[in-house]
């Protein structure tokens, strides 16, 4: 019976009333001023099963390389680096070695589009694995067109259930933790004119469970103590985007996001893209992004008391107040129109470079290359 069920699934999966197939693949590297480096290799396969059904499978492999910690073992400089570290350090001697880890990620989605494409229902599953963290998420989405597709309303729900199993770390007893996340996203997309579109949305996330970094320690009351964050967090954001097409074969996209949570962090983000065709086979995209955020209510540069603020301690730079900027350029080369074989006519090549820097003297280069191949 089980074998027959697999045969049915395989026949349905390979039969295609609409031959929509697409492979997208790419490589992404991130390197920063602290010599941290992340290489990501991604491949995504979109497959139409029958006229109203579509599946997408996305796999990614991250290779994270962190440098040795600065300073001699036991020195103040070495210890200070350990307090802000995001890596396990089993001993002061091992802190002088580089650290590398792999993260595997798999994401599957099934999409059902009945009612002549006016409604779209999606179900998704996500799984990621690395040495000290397993991430899992299940999601459901529903989107519906109104007024001949001029208005689209979309709602998404997801439930995440992660397991954190810290590796052996100096001075810390490794215990397993769990973290749960419920996410709600609502998006309203509206056609404004023949050349413009606007989007408005809300996202809320309720996080409960372990939310600290098990490797990071904080100076409090004159001693090194493990970082301690609250176990509940309600995060919410309101965002909007406006896209406009110009007769010069260019488009502008501007977006804004306002974020706040009950840890006291508030943030505003502005993002602008300018896309321009150069001839028929080159698209240039310029980008600028600005982010501004306030610190968490329990964040301090120095804790006088061992109990921190209301029992919480953090050395997490993400909970500090800072501003960041990002500049970038992306080149896309659509093969359509070139004198090539039919199978290559829909291919698009992408190359992107971005520079990110913030007011805390951190900077990073992001380089990404990839292709999309419909067949």
């Amino acid at each position, binding site marked *: 019976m089980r074998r027959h069920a697999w045969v049915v699934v395989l026949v349905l999966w390979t039969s295609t009333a609409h031959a929509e197939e697409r492979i997208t693949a790419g490589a992404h590297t991130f390197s920063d001023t602290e010599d941290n480096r992340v290489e990501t290799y991604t491949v995504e396969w979109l497959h139409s099963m029958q006229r109203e059904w579509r599946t997408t499978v996305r796999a990614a492999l991250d290779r994270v390389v962190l440098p040795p910690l600065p300073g001699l073992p036991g020195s103040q400089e070495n210890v200070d680096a350990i307090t802000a570290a995001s890596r396990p350090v089993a001993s002061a001697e091992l802190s002088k070695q580089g650290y590398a880890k792999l993260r595997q990620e798999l994401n599957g989605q099934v999409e059902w589009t009945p009612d002549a494409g006016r409604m779209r229902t999606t179900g998704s599953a996500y799984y990621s694995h690395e040495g000290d963290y397993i991430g899992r998420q299940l*999601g459901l989405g529903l989107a519906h067109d109104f007024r001949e597709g001029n208005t689209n309303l979309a709602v998404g729900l997801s439930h995440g259930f992660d397991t954190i199993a810290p590796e052996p770390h100096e001075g810390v007893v490794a215990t397993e933790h769990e973290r749960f996340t419920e996410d709600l996203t609502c998006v309203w997309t509206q056609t404004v004119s023949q050349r413009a579109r606007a989007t408005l949305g809300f996202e809320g996330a309720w996080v409960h469970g372990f939310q600290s970094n098990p490797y990071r320690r904080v100076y409090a009351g004159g001693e090194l103590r493990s970082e301690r964050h609250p176990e509940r967090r309600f995060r919410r954001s309101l965002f909007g985007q406006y896209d406009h097409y110009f007769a010069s074969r260019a*488009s502008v996209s501007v977006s804004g996001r306002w974020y706040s949570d009950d840890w006291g962090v508030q943030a505003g983000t502005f993002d602008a893209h300018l896309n321009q065709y150069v001839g028929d086979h080159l698209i240039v995209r310029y980008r600028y992004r600005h982010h501004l955020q306030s610190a968490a209510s329990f964040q301090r540069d120095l804790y006088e008391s061992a109990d921190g603020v209301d029992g919480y301690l953090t050395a997490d730079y993400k909970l500090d107040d800072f501003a960041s900027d990002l500049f970038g350029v992306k080149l896309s080369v659509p093969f359509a129109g070139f004198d090539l074989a039919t199978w290559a006519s829909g291919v698009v090549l992408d190359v992107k470079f971005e520079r990110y820097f913030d007011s805390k003297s951190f900077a990073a280069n992001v380089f990404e290359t990839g292709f999309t191949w419909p067949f």
Partner: protein
Amino acid sequence: MTPRTEWRLALRMFAVGFGTCVLIALAGCAHVKPYQRQHLADRIMDPAAVRWEAASERKMLSTREGAMGGVQGMGGGCACN
């Protein structure tokens, strides 16, 4: 007024101003027929064209910034502390 209060006031003003602009823009919406949407369907206007890179960007920014959320929607968990 403390610096923290100033931050919050500035960010609230930004949220109200941006939301007002969006509502004003939406009030002038036209009804566009499907055969009139060739520009909206162009690659440089297609949100699906950037959705793929948005996933890796979302993960990168979550390791550096304390905010989350945006047009590209939800993502999965990782040891991104």
